[in-house]
């Protein structure tokens, strides 16, 4: 079936079959490989994208379901300059191997856009859907707290 939606601000129109995952649509059909596949069952969060502003695991979303929606991937976070959360990740050393980084950034970007910013004590729970095996999370939490809780 043919669907139309917006990805990183651009309108796209693609043919998808009913079993295509949003993850594969993005990575294979649209060549947006910044979104990663870690487990294919919604546990690791490496495939997180914003779907109408909410962070979702794109491996669990049927592609046809995003018709008419607005998708943002890691490639769409930066404009002329990096998104503040991208800068904070660089500054704090929150990215090591980098495979989980796109998903973490997407979830953090969702939090940073909330009208009522979450409390510092809530950040660890709010980020718990994105696994990282390199950092021990401390530097990620430091970066997210700085952008989401302090500056907003």
């Amino acid at each position: 079936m043919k669907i139309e939606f917006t990805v990183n601000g651009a309108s796209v129109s693609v043919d998808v079959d009913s079993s295509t995952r949003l993850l594969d649509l993005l990575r294979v059909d649209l060549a947006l490989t910044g979104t990663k596949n870690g487990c294919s069952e919604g546990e690791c969060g490496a495939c997180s994208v914003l779907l109408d502003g909410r962070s979702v695991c794109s491996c669990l979303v049927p592609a046809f379901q995003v018709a008419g929606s607005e998708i943002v991937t890691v490639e769409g976070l930066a404009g002329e300059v990096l998104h503040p959360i991208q800068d904070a990740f660089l500054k704090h050393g929150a990215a090591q191997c980098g495979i989980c980084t796109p998903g973490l950034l997407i979830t953090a970007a969702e939090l940073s856009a909330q009208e009522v910013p979450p409390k510092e004590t809530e950040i660890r729970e709010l980020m718990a859907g994105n696994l990282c095996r390199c950092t021990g999370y401390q530097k990620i939490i430091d970066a997210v707290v700085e952008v989401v809780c302090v500056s907003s």
Partner: protein
Amino acid sequence: MIIGQGVQRGDGVPKVTGAALYVDDLDIDGCLHGVTVRSPHARARIVSIEKSEDYDWSDITVVTAKDIKGENTIYLMTRDQPALAESETKHCHEPVALIAAVTLERAKDAARHLVVKYEPLPALLDANLSRTSDVNIFGTDNTFKEINIRKGDHAGVSEGVLIEGTYKTGLHEQLYIEPQGMIAIPREDGGVTITGSMQCPYYIVKGITDLLGIDKSEINVIQSTTGGGFGGKEEYPSMLAAHVALLSQASGKPVKIVYDRTEDLQSTTKRHPTTVTIRSRVSDTGRLLTWESDILVDGGAYNTLTPVVLSRAVLHVTGPYRCDNYNITGFAVATNTPPNGAFRGFGAPQAQFASERHMDRIARVMGFDPIELRRRNLVVSGDETATGQKLYDPGAHTVLEAALTAADNSDVPPPKSFSGDGGLAARLSKGRGVALAFHGCGFTGNGEAALQGRVSVSLEGGKVHIQTASTDIGQGVDTIFCQIVAEELDIPLDMVVMDPHDTDNVPDSGPTVASRTTMVVGRVCQRAAKGLLELLREQSGRDESFTVLARDYEGPSSLRVEEVYTEEVDMEWDPETYQGDAYPTYGWSCVVVDCTVDRDTGEVRYDRFVSATDVGRALNPVLAAGQIEGGSLQALGWATSEEVVLDERGSMKNARLTNYIVPTSLDAPEMHTVLVEIPFVGGPFGAKGIGEIPMDAPAAAVAQAIEQAVGVVLNELPMTPERVLCEVE
């Protein structure tokens, strides 16, 4: 100074913008997709492999052992492991055939139509029975390696209290978030280019050249951006490279294999399950008089790197303590389970879980405070290790006091929110655990001298390029080496470029393992940079700075200097007696973990984690802390939640991220990381290796904290809620 600065990692921007290309992101024209057909039995004879006659095989490539042109082996330390099983499979999920097709779906479908008939054979799954079993897996008695260390006269000591304990650790999965993957691309000269996720490009060259029946000049290996390794991508990628190369040879096309998570968990290497028994005599003042230890390491079905893992285990089972009388025996044996392999720490975490738990046992039995008992026995300058290596400036006491001070200076946060009622407080008990570890940096004994690791540095287009086979797998090598060169040549960091890790262009620096990259290879890199400056001065006849000489340089477009490892500290080592200088130097670590234990559920919550680690010199404190914090959380996961459950075939039952539980940000404690700097003269600017030591101490500290909180003594990992609950009355 660029050294000592937490400069941003060179690959940071591509990683935060999604531009970094990992193996599954590479778009190779005409690339086929490969899948692996695996044995479902612990041990079996392969009766036949046949293609279903009613299936269309016209566009499918199939490879079995019969199609291999060269020698059917993945060469590492030995040649016992085949690329594809020929007549007998020795472990569940062992590869027996390969299939490639234009799409992954088509390849998977074809795999279902390849009929492999097996005759199941009796299998050996229990390492304790391995050496006496009728099932023959390796050599004559299923023993990969036996190592003995003797020092002093343990049998001659009869005074003191004899204390004995046994300590066990289970399988542990590296769980890099990027599953293993590899691509083979045919070259015009008939050779092959391998690219993918890996730690050790030259291991692959060595591992598959004989298999493919080609000359090593006909193969080049390129590391793609690698999403974590932790040892899991040390030796296993040679197997994957072999498979894509065989399919590429057979089809004449590029072939990619990327494992899904379950295949990765079931098939690839894990940390060796280990049982350690320690017997020691202790004086009434708490001094260790004898230290006897028996170690049994389960290597799985093939040798892989198991003998070296056993070596690390026997060399670290003393812990950072002094004793004059040692008797240490280690066996590494075979079972019909998937081969175990490299994982951060490489035997030392298992050994030091045991030694630290044993110190706690001594304290408990003899009525000592556990920290005071350690203070009385920690090594000091001039002490000798079990191998007779004299220690200079060991940091054991320093890291202990640094960690305790840091732990006392910061407030212990309240326990994280539990969903519960007013009766909650009665369920929760807090405890604090303290543990220490040491870790030998670099290869054992004369390993580095034998390996002769190389690095080259070149001046090209006004920039300095580094060529090394040491790969960045997230730990930040590319950044650290650029810092080293910039510092050595007194040039800005943006004047230094790390070349791609392609064996056609980079010399063999040795593998990216063993806490050796920064300390050993980084030192070679530093000397190569110095060599480049000296060459420029010699050629120009001017004693100017590098900046001036590089600006005025008018020679060939690339001026390259290659350096090779040189022993800078005297090393005397006897691999037969295991006596002498086991490592060029050691790192030291102490951790303090605060836990809350729920008596009703057995759950252990980590409230706070403080560590003090001797890093020699923190070349980049942000990256150094990142290594320590990440390694520590892997150890905390190993301590309480990460359990690999095998079924009766030796197959991992919980091979999904849903039921193999790694810590999330909510499970992880707040971390305070203290970097202690006791410089090593043989490392670049004093740096020591730090990649592995964070794995060594935390699990034992958690066990001690649980003991303090609820009075339960656990000597086996992981300490899951079920295990804790079984012991709580």
